[in-house]
């Protein structure tokens, strides 16, 4: 998945620990090879190669559930969470320091829109050639939950799974003490925590404007692009971290909060989930208590 996967847990036997870790790693690799858009044989690549083809692709149960989830998220986010929006990265090259022209953006913007996709489980049709779907916006959080589940099913109840910042704490330390989770400082050039959150049993996911971005004329343009305008988000959190029972829900909520731009904070408050938001001046807000 391109990011570091960490498994921290307590177990009474090394053989069992090795075996379960291997199961978890295998599952992470399985999901990567199935959904990565960088691998030719992945479901994502197969689907994207079929764009423009009226016959579409038949997908399996797991993919069906993931697509149904994406559909629900699209509807619950005022259509801002849109898994067809990935194609806009072709307009925005963050290494170039150049802002694309209006026509450039429009070329790709007309291929964006989950409402254009024909999804009737298990058949997925991308009617317009050049349309792409990308699971990258949420499959990593899903994978985090899948791995946490492997530990719980094996009756290992103390530990956490961390996949590059998407975390599922499936149990505290054996004495009941919480894990201390560091939140990345969104304006630091090195990996540095700006705050720590205590989690006993919950999942945490973050979204921010600092992962891929460019600054042009003192304006920041980041990799989170509004699928309706084709432009990167403005006036949003610098980063937001959300806590929920499932990492998938936490991640989707964090992403939607960013996409809601200046309405993000109110939207997040309304969900009832605990969160920590950091604005462009590194001021911390939110319902989570930090140390």
């Amino acid at each position, binding site marked *: 998945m391109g990011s570091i996967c960490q498994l921290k847990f307590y177990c009474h036997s090394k053989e069992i620990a090795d075996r379960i870790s291997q199961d978890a790693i295998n599952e992470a690799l399985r999901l990567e090879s199935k959904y990565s858009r960088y691998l030719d044989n992945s479901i994502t690549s197969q689907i994207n190669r079929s764009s423009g083809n009226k016959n579409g692709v038949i997908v399996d*149960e*797991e993919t069906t*559930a*993931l697509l*149904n*989830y994406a*559909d*629900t*998220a699209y*509807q*619950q*986010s005022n259509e801002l969470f849109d898994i067809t929006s990935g194609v806009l990265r072709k307009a925005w090259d963050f290494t170039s320091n150049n802002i694309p022209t209006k026509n450039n953006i429009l070329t790709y913007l007309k291929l964006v829109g989950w409402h254009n996709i024909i999804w009737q489980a298990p058949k997925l049709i991308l009617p317009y050639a050049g349309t792409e779907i990308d699971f990258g916006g949420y499959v990593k959080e*899903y994978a985090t*939950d*899948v791995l946490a*589940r492997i530990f719980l099913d094996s009756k290992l109840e103390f530990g956490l799974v961390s996949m590059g910042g998407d975390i599922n704490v499936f149990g505290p330390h*054996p*004495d*009941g003490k919480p894990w201390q989770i560091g939140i990345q400082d969104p304006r630091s050039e090195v990996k540095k925590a700006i705050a720590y959150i205590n989690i006993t*049993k*919950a999942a945490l996911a973050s979204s921010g404007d600092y992962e891929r971005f460019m600054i042009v004329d003192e304006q920041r343009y980041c990799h989170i692009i509004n699928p309706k305008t084709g432009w990167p988000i403005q006036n949003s959190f610098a980063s937001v971290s959300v*806590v*929920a*029972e*499932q990492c*998938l*829900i936490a991640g*989707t*909520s964090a992403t939607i909060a960013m996409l809601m731009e200046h309405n993000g904070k109110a939207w997040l408050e*309304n*969900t*009832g*989930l*605990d969160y920590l938001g950091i604005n462009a001046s590194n001021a911390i807000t939110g*319902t989570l208590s930090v140390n």
Partner: protein
Amino acid sequence: MKTNKNTVILALTSSAMALPAYSNNTISYRYSNYQEDDVPEGRVVTGSNKRYDIDIHQFRLLSELSDNYKFGLDIAQETLSGASPWYTSDPDNDGNPDLVMSSASIKDERTDVNISGTYINDKTNYTLTLGSSTEDDYQAQSAGIDIAKNFRNRTLDSINAGLSLSADTIDPTNSIFLNQDRLTEEAEKDSLSLYLGAGWIINKLSTIRSTLSYTKLEGYLTDPYKFLDRRPNIKTQWAWTVKYRYFLTKLSTALQTNYRYYTDDWGVDSHTLETSLYTNISESLKFIPSFRFYEQTAADFYRLPGNTDGIFYSDDSRLSNFYAFSGGLTIKVKTDSITYVISGERYVSDGNEHQGLVNYNTFTIGIDYSF
């Protein structure tokens, strides 16, 4: 974490539940056949010597709706045919009472439904169960609450307590084998049951649990299909159980032993001892042989014919002084999400001359499916 999420989160969560990582449900089905041995032909005065043959279907759904909520549904359906002892009689005066049986055309169906909901908070489980059982001549409604508290870091591992109530209605007017001077209309029976138990961890390989339960029954407690049966309309019973589990590491086998002492104010005292050896032949194959011993004393008003005086009377073999042995084997085959089960058991009882004491075989096949 706040617990009141808005509709957005609820919509996302219920959509997520369809993904393999999140749902934890099991559906189970068992078919069983229960067959009693015939009464020896020479020992039946009139009626059929063919005893009960019962087909039982059990269905169970268990669903973990979230980390905090579980739901369960149990449906059991049984179809019974065969004759049962109506009363005892000694026409040849040889001192050994014979049986007067009902005819073999008794056919009865029973359906039993139970629904339960569990709420889990901070290692404590609260369960509410509602049940309803219906057959031609009998209806029972029940409700129960169970509380189980688990401890993380101590020798005392758990405390369990519960209360349940049952309200039953008996309406046996459709049978000619009725009790002679009783019950021409509906009768009722109510029961209240309480229990308290605790479990301890002895060491990494063994645990023990003990429970004390108290039950009070009131109402029509007589068996309406036994000719001269007349029992008190109140009964108090106590049961004390001890369960022990020990893992034999080298054999990859768990020894399971349960003991129960029972006593009631009708004069019945009993001891029950059951042992199983849950043996892991491999990750996917389990052999579980089991053995049970049971022994009870007779109820104060239990008598065989010849002396039917007294306020209370019963010649029901189930209230006599007897003992019973049973042995069985269960085999489980486990695959990724399905477990197949097959089992059989033989039960024999003895200890007095009452021909109503049963011997029976049971056979079960079943399947558990996780999704």
